[in-house]
């Protein structure tokens, strides 16, 4: 079942057109990666999906409704967005932050604070200040907030940026678990092709256009990647290295592979 759909979406940061008649859909329970060079439009696509930007043409549909037709709290119960730059020094305790996820709820919460902290592996850290956590833990605290929020679609802008390989891997495992066990759909932008190769599906973007989509093996080809990043030289050595990383990660976490 489709949970997120872009139907001929165009957008421009005036006066320059930026996203050109883009169409794609994401099914329920998919872990989808959005890849492309810096400035290709990944963050803009996620902001359009979150309703932070309005398309000039076309529609962004979440469930069966256009995202802009949702009222604030109703939208928040369907969809959560975490920007690339999170306020990692926000003056809150972990528990205070995660409880904010209950703001859009009118009845019972999708998940209690304790359960959400358990899912992201931060049990026992409810009273810690955010500033006392590591970078990876802080991101997980924000993800716990979206779990309490009960959003069925999670949009993450470069959640792996500036994390070392351990935290990247931990976060990947967490997202995979959330997708598998909670039925949440995750769309995330990322640069790391090794990580990209582990996702269910990839969307490759260049200058505001979708140039390829499909399973990682079909998208991360030498030809498509060179085109997306405007590279003249062959990427075979780099791609081989990335395949090693992907394989190593996949072997290290067989339970995470669907």
């Amino acid at each position: 079942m489709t949970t997120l759909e872009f139907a001929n979406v165009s957008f421009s940061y005036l006066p320059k057109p930026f996203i050109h008649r883009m169409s794609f859909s994401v099914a329920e329970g998919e872990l989808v990666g959005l890849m492309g060079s810096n400035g290709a439009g990944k963050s803009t696509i996620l902001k359009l999906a979150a309703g932070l930007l309005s398309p000039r043409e076309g529609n962004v549909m979440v469930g069966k409704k256009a995202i802009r037709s949702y009222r604030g709290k109703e939208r928040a119960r369907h969809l959560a967005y975490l920007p690339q730059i999170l306020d990692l020094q926000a003056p809150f305790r972990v528990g205070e932050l995660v409880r904010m996820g209950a703001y859009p709820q009118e009845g019972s919460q999708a998940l209690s604070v304790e359960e959400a902290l358990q899912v992201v592996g931060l049990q026992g850290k409810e009273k810690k200040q955010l500033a006392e956590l590591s970078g990876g833990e802080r991101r997980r605290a924000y993800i716990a907030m979206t779990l309490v929020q009960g959003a069925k679609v999670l949009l993450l802008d470069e959640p792996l940026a500036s994390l070392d390989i351990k935290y990247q891997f931990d976060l990947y495992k967490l997202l995979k678990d959330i997708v598998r066990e909670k039925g949440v759909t995750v769309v995330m932008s990322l640069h790391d092709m090794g990580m990209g190769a582990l996702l269910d599906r990839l969307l490759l973007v260049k200058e505001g256009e979708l140039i390829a989509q499909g399973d990682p093996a079909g998208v991360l080809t030498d030809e498509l990647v060179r085109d997306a990043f405007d590279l003249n030289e062959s990427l075979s050595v780099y791609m081989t290295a990335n395949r090693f990383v992907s394989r190593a990660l996949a072997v290290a976490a067989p339970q995470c592979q669907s």
Partner: protein
Amino acid sequence: MKPANGSMFLVAAALSMAALCIIVVSVASGPRLLNPFTMDSETCRTLLAIRLPRTAIALLMGGALGASGAILQGIFRNPLADPYILGISSGASLAASFGLMFGISLFTLSVPILAFIGAIATGAAVVLLGCGWKGLQPERLLLAGVGIGFFLSALLMLVMTVSVDDGLKRAILWMSGDLSMVDWGLLPVGLFFILSGFCLALSRRKGLNALTLGDDIAHSLGFNPTRERLYLFIAASLMTAASVSMGGVVGFIGLVVPHLVRRHVGSDATVVLPLSVVAGGTLLCLADAIGRTVAAPLELPAGVIAALIGSPYFIYLLRQGKSY
């Protein structure tokens, strides 16, 4: 949001007890110490006409400034934001000083009313200039406030330079936080605007928490960041305007009290807003009591005393090394 831990209740209880004690001290102290057990007619008159209204207004003003500071630091995501950074005090000062120096005293409350009008007009101008195509953005709002504040301060200096009469001294005292002129007449209107602002802020406390995390997260949590920021800005402006119009410009409290409160109870606005009111009111009440007692019959400005009492404690807390 549930309380982070039981220590919050201890802090709230301790603060409330301290507030009650300081109210008693404030009512009793002054150039002439009042003994509540020997109430003659003179004592009774001093109590009702001077000490009680002064204590009540100090509590109200300090509470309003504490809550305004907590709001503005949240909506601007800036720990240095305070009720005066947005030019509101400059607007109030200019209007009030104009009234004091040029003798515009049509009736008793003309100076507070002028100050209130000046503050609200400045707040409205800051909102109009701070609103861009992306709505009410914190950086733009802050820059608009600072710019208007500097402009009005320059106008104020100009007015003070050309003024020669004794209204100038009153204006300078007023700008340092002068509570010596307060009476019961100020209380109902001030209380109305401060209560209105506080209730508005308290009703938007979840939005304030969400804005502290940034506009994108606030949007993701179902809030309209521009609308929440506007409501909260109106609440802070109403409280600041009412406070400035009652007793002049008292610095320090709006900047530091919210930090002191957060140090002890965390950052949830549900807790921080009411406790900032209690802590701000208590501190100003204590500062005013000290200011009118230690060098009697000379009165020292309450704002100066508040800074002298609060700064060492604030520095001590910073030295503890805990992060906010």
